[in-house]
């Protein structure tokens, strides 16, 4: 057929495709394999199941398991929760899934919809989903798998700390916290929630979107952002910013700060900001009173001139399209995609 050559190189050669192959083929990968570090063996869990003794034990355990399952099936009250379940692996101590405790004799468990994974001060666990990523659950953490009928993978962090390494497509993994929803945008990050429901997120790779109602923050690699139960996501900042800058920024996040305190804090933030802190300044535009917005605009414009289509009047009026256009100039990612994902999982949340 006509496209055979394009498909697999068979059939009558297409001169145009051949020429394209010749020209573009010069860009083909030709670098030999580098010397990879010997870290694989250190990362892989011991493969006990390959040992004959383990296989024998496994066979015996399987017989016992069949008997146990047969008994359990006769008790309708103990059927597994409906819906998908995620694999949980014990790393230390005795993490609990519902009333089931993982221990040395039961290294793995399944976290079903509606169930809670809880670790005490000595326990640590990991959740692995091949197509999504890995979430390490630190001690003193409570994590739930809420009902999510959509394609979005969703967990709820009530308190404690998790470390997520996500390789699912951006926007497909979401963590609910009491003070914000964290949306993975292709990244690795640490998320902590304290007993009062406030949170702190550090992004180490990629970026994360944080949202509560109309309040949203974007946190790229190297940046952090706090969340507050009443006000939602705070203003993100790069962790290498000066102590004074970060301290002043946190005052702008605090609802109880007086107008005078906030005015002084804004003065410090503007004075100490670097080009890199355009991240924080962009977020500040929609967080400060209208009377202060012009100062933030002027400072941000010094580091990153507003692109075509963005006007001072528009920004002072918080025109969302103009704010998005300016964000796209920062180079952290296209906010248009975020708007799409935001709609998707907001609709799913409202179902």
């Amino acid at each position, binding site marked *: *057929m006509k*496209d055979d050559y*394009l*498909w*697999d*190189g068979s059939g009558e050669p297409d*001169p*145009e*495709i051949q*020429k*394209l*192959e010749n*020209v*573009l*083929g*010069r*860009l*083909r*990968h030709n*670098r030999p*394999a*580098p010397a*990879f*570090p*010997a*870290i*694989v*063996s*250190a*990362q*892989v*869990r011991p*493969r006990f199941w390959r040992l004959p003794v383990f296989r024998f034990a496994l066979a015996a355990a399987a017989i016992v398991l069949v008997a146990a399952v047969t008994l359990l099936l006769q008790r309708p009250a103990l059927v597994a929760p409906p819906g998908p379940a995620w694999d949980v692996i014990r790393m230390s101590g005795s993490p609990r899934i519902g009333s089931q405790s993982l221990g040395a004799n039961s290294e793995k468990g399944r976290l079903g919809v509606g169930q809670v994974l809880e670790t005490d001060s000595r326990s640590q666990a990991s959740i*692995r989903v*091949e197509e999504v*990523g*890995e979430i390490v659950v630190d001690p003193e953490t409570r994590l739930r798998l809420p009902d999510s009928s959509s394609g979005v993978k969703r967990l709820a962090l009530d308190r404690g700390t998790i470390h997520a*390494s996500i*390789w*699912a*497509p*951006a926007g497909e993994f979401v963590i609910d916290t009491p003070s914000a929803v964290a949306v993975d*945008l*292709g*990244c690795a990050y640490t998320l902590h929630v304290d007993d009062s429901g406030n949170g702190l997120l550090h992004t180490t*790779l*990629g*970026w994360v979107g944080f949202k509560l109602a109309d309040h949203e923050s974007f946190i*790229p*690699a190297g940046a952090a952002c706090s969340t507050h139960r009443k006000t939602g996501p705070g203003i993100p900042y790069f962790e290498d910013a000066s102590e004074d800058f970060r301290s002043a920024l946190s005052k702008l996040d605090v609802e109880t700060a007086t107008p005078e305190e906030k005015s002084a804090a804004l003065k410090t933030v503007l004075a100490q900001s670097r*080009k*890199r802190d*355009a991240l924080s300044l962009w977020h500040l535009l929609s967080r400060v009173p209208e009377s202060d917005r012009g100062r933030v605009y002027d400072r941000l414009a010094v580091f990153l001139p507003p692109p075509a289509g963005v006007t001072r009047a528009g920004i002072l009026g918080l025109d969302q399209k103009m704010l998005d256009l300016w964000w796209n*100039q*920062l*180079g*952290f*990612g296209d906010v248009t995609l975020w708007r799409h994902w935001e709609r998707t999982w907001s609709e799913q949340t409202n179902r």
Partner: protein
Amino acid sequence: MSSASGDGVELLAASLGPQAVTDISATAACEDSQLVEAARTGDRTAFGRLYDRYARLVHGILLARVPFSEVDDLVQDVFLLALPRLGSLRDVTRFGPWLAAIARNRANDYHRQSVDQVELTDGLPANESASQMKSSPVEDVEAEFILGLVRALPETYRETLLLRLVEGMTGPEIAARTGLTPGSVRVNLHRGMQQLREKLAQRSPGTRDRVVKE
């Protein structure tokens, strides 16, 4: 692109079952599985062989998204990212799609990490044409021009087309390595090529003439 031709390709794609790539996917998946298993136990030679097999895939995916001068380094980054995560790959036969996802995420991350926005220009920086392409100036200009046109295509077509035209992978091989269905790959190749032909014709008739001229 006319809908008629598109429908035609979809019909052809629909008629192209998984059987078409059975030989490639079954053999490759079996060997790859063995290499992944070996790499997970610390066999660096096995991981090196996986690199040899999959570097073109990763290279093509990155080339569709980041500046040419960055691609080689990022290819190595992707493999270094994958290396410590091998233990979490439950289905070893899905190594290709898993690696492709890491490559796409790494490309996204490349853009996010850069405060000064990196622009994918139509062409290549002048200094890398000479050092990396190892071709005559006329061919450099052609490659520069065509790469820019391919990069202007929709992402799905762009990636598949670069894997075919730059990396020299066949359609069945692209399907087996990326986890896409053969039908999808065929449609992407057909439509991508059709759009590329249109762009070649519209953007610079002179250059297109040079491309088609033997």
